[in-house]
């Protein structure tokens, strides 16, 4: 069995009176593709922020690469993070190249300006996600799917060992979403450990090796076949939740049961 790249022990996170994470103990092995599912407000984003060390737990320990998450220092660069990007002003006339280059800023360090090596890394990252030809395009001019790839390229620009993604396909059409997940799969095949927060249960079934069901506390975590049952689903989403079966065999999305 591979070594744990992320290890949480009895982690509690409280925001004033709200408990975001309650007694979460979890190990994620190096090389795994792990999906975190759960309803809104279930602590999924908090979990990712704890792993990257910007949210400090109220109690418990979080270790990433064997080091306490808040003390990662330069090791933080081994983690790529694709956020929900809700706080970005897309009207800023930034090119895709400059946007991806931002991911190198921490690596470059303060008081310094990007060198040729940094620019090469940007080109490499854009090639990896197949958007090299969009380098000079403005971020605002990209489609939803292309934007997500630009965010992914920025997260990959330091060749991370661990990639965290927070609902990366929100607002992206189905075809682009499928392509995006295929891309994640190929990154995973190249050895990157992936932790993905998703509402898309389909991804869980087809890509993940491990599923973490979160509802502030850990409902279940295991291989998809063991976790994807109606009992765990209802613990997270309420008694009316159920799997919605398409004509294919994999359960696809969570819906409420109707009377008919």
């Amino acid at each position, binding site marked *: 069995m591979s070594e744990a790249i992320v290890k949480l022990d009895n982690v509690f996170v409280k925001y004033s009176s709200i408990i975001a994470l309650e007694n979460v103990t979890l190990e994620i092995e190096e090389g795994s593709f792990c999906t975190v599912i759960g309803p809104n407000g279930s602590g999924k984003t908090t979990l990712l*922020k704890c792993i*990257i060390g*910007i949210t400090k737990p109220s109690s418990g320990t979080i270790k990433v690469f064997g080091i306490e998450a808040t003390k*990662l220092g330069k090791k*933080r*660069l081994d983690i790529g*993070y694709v*956020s929900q*990007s809700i*706080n*970005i*002003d897309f*009207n*800023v*006339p*930034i*090119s895709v190249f*400059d946007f991806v280059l*931002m*991911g190198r*800023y*921490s690596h*470059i360090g*303060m*008081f310094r*300006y*990007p060198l040729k090596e940094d620019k090469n890394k940007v080109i490499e990252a854009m090639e990896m996600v197949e958007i090299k030809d969009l380098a000079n395009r*403005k971020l605002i001019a990209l489609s939803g799917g292309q934007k997500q790839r630009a965010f992914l390229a*920025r997260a990959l620009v330091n060749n991370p060992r661990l990639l965290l993604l927070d609902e990366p396909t929100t607002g992206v059409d189905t075809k682009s979403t499928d392509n995006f997940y295929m891309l994640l799969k190929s990154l995973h095949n190249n050895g990157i450990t992936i932790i993905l927060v998703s509402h898309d249960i389909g991804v869980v079934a087809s890509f993940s090796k491990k599923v973490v069901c979160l509802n502030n506390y850990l409902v279940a975590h295991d291989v998809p076949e063991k976790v994807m049952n109606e009992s765990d689903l209802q613990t997270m989403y309420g008694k009316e939740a159920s799997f919605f079966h398409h004509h294919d065999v994999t359960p696809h999305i969570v819906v409420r049961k109707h009377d008919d």
Partner: protein
Amino acid sequence: MIDILTYPFMQRAFISGTIIGLLCSIIGIYIVMRGLSFIGAGISHASFGGVALGFLLKINPIITAAIFCILTAWGITIVSGKEKLKEDTAIGIFFATTMALGILFIGLTGNYNVDLFGYLFGSILSVGAFDLYISILLGLLILLLIVMFFKEFLFISFDPEGAEVSGLPVSFLRYLLLTLIALTIVLSMKIVGIILVSALLVIPAASAYQIAKGIRSLFIWSGIFCFFAVYCGLFLSYIFDTPSGATIVILSAIVFFLILLVKSAIKIRKS
């Protein structure tokens, strides 16, 4: 026309204007990008309290205004970050309190003949030799810090969350940027005036946003608009004897609305 530059007070006003133009055009981009316009207005009004305290204590008002502005900028950030308070509410509270303190200090000095009007609305006659030295020294320091942290300021203004997860010390950078905004406001106060200084931080940058095709051109256009407004404003205020701050800001606004007008005309033509 050039002979106006032979007057020492105009020379000082133009040198000071050059520093202001440079700083406001760069800092303005960060302000507009992060939506800090209102905090800029809050800080600039706080300088009134600082100026009045300077009059009361008989210290150069630039020094007391600098302290007041920096503390206000930090205060707004600390209060809105920790308490159950939105940032604009915190700004509203600080804004009014510092203005009230200013009025109180002026009342306490018991001398209403002080050159308060110049500070409020800006005057080309107001830049003394000592003010100019402070402007040059402080201006160079601010510029140096901007050059040092240029890319980091850009990142935290554009995508604070992305900057934080990438490992940048976002909190330190935010306080540093606010400090530089506060100091730029203080330097611009004498020529542009307390009431209008925040406009010079916002309007040229907002105009640049309308036409810039990339990050570099954003800063270049902002510089062009800012220098145009400051130089022409100073020149016109000398010729027509108008308050320099108002003249500069009105010129900025004319440029901004002209750009909007031309852009709309082009759009209509295309459709």
